[in-house]
């Protein structure tokens, strides 16, 4: 049985929504049953941080996937994946604000946030990544895309430094075992290198060879 583009898009959309909601549902279930371990706040922060990075990387997979397969759905769903990444980052950040800074004492929390932003480099880069993604989430609508025209594309290239800072944020907070953060770093590196002009040119030649009928088709980027 073969899938047409529409069926593939529907299937992919359903899978991505499932993928996005499942970790959240699992965390809520654990929270409600007190199964977040001995240090539940850390558990939430780490789990939400992990999923933030996973969705951010997944959003960066979409364009290469579109180019390599010719499928249309990766570009159609790129925005959904990116917004989910942002949603997880916001939740991750919220847990830090509410419990680490202690929202019950807002004045002190604000002072502590200031101190953390200045003194803790991993927090500085994590916060900066969130700041970079904020305008992308706001301008993710069709309306903004139309209004900003070419500048939209330039603006949305902020996702690259945001992803780098996000991975750095993870690398810098680990005490010793760097294997997991470095795995994210390696995947990000592949995704970024793929976007380099020379990699694009080679990819273009390969695609042209394998698809003799393909029109000199520009692949939309990023």
């Amino acid at each position, binding site marked *: 049985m073969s899938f047409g*583009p529409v069926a593939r898009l529907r299937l992919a959309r359903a899978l991505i929504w499932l993928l996005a909601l499942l970790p959240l549902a699992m965390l809520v279930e654990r929270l409600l049953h*007190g199964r*977040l371990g*001995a240090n539940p706040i850390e558990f939430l922060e780490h789990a939400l941080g992990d999923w933030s990075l996973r969705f951010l990387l997944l959003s960066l997979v979409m364009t290469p996937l579109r180019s390599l397969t010719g499928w249309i759905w990766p570009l159609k769903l790129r925005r959904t994946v990116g917004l989910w990444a942002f949603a997880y980052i916001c939740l991750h950040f919220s847990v830090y604000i509410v419990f680490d800074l202690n929202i019950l004492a807002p004045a002190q929390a604000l002072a502590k946030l200031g101190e953390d932003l200045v*003194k803790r480099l*991993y927090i500085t880069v994590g916060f900066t990544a969130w700041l970079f993604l904020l305008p992308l989430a706001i301008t993710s609508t069709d309306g903004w895309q139309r209004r900003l025209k070419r500048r939209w594309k330039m603006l949305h290239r902020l996702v690259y430094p945001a992803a780098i800072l996000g991975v750095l944020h993870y690398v810098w*907070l680990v005490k010793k*075992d760097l294997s997991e953060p470095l795995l994210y770093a390696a995947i990000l590196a592949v995704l970024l290198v793929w976007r380099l002009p020379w990699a694009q040119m080679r990819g273009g030649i390969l695609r042209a060879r394998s698809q003799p009928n393909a029109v000199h*088709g520009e692949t*939309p980027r990023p």
Partner: protein
Amino acid sequence: MLIRVAPEFPIASSEITSEPVFQDRRRFLAQMGLATAGLALSACSDAKEALKPAPAAAAGDGAEKSGLATLEVSKKTEMAGGEKVCSYDDITQYNNFYEFGTGKSDPASYSSTLKPRPWSVTVEGECDAPGVLGIDDLIKPQALEERIYRMRCVEAWSVVVPWIGFPLADLIKRFKPNSKAKFVQFFTLADPVQMPMIKRAVLPYPYREALRIDEAMHPLAFMVVGLYGRVLPNQNGAPLRLITPWKYGFKGVKSIVKIRFVETQPETTWNQLGPDEYGFYANVNPAVDHPRWSQASERRLGELFRRATLPFNGYPEVASLYAGMDLRKNY
């Protein structure tokens, strides 16, 4: 975003994007956000209940379930300023013991391969009574006591634990250290059969720690063989570990197989790995931050919000050991 649809696609992208389900998605996302926030808020009150330190009777339930042998103690001393003891489960399910993995729950999950009996401890170096002691011969002459201590990890979390053991000073005296014994060094077991994870070599094994001899002789320095009325679970460093409650937890070397008296300050594992992050002394000090994170506050297991960290972890009686020393340099 300009999408020029390549001709190999039979359907124009506009036809796909205008699907009602696509339009609906944004509303759904907004609702999800609200629903999640609502859930999280309502869950907070439940979670608060669930996370409250369990009453004394329930806190130790896990100890009974462990089935570990019980220990008789001659006396019990509360030495954590009346702070609530953490639950047995928190103390035994959230550990740093890299020989069994770097995740906090790894030691509880993977330490069943450790065999705390038979066990022997080698005593060597600058002392008049060196030798190799079976673990039971080492413990038997000592009167066991229970002490409730705070324990503060360098990672800014903390617990309150009812340890069972005996003063380190009493043990050291048996080996008759000589005048050259300025430091005492401790080694953790490094056996790839009992500890398969050490092959990953995240740290240089065996794990090594050390104390200045006067620190080791301080009455607070405690040799631990049990907790919560029973012998130590493997993940907490069975069958013998060190506890120095005024220092960061990594000084509390676990599953000790060797004690050595030396004249010069020996290398210690974390200090060797990150000298600017982990000092030899490693005294709990809220005024000296870890280069990457604050040491001013900590999260007590069982509590939602952070609490202030106390100088020397609330054991000011050790301060005289460091009279005249700059604790910012000797962190």
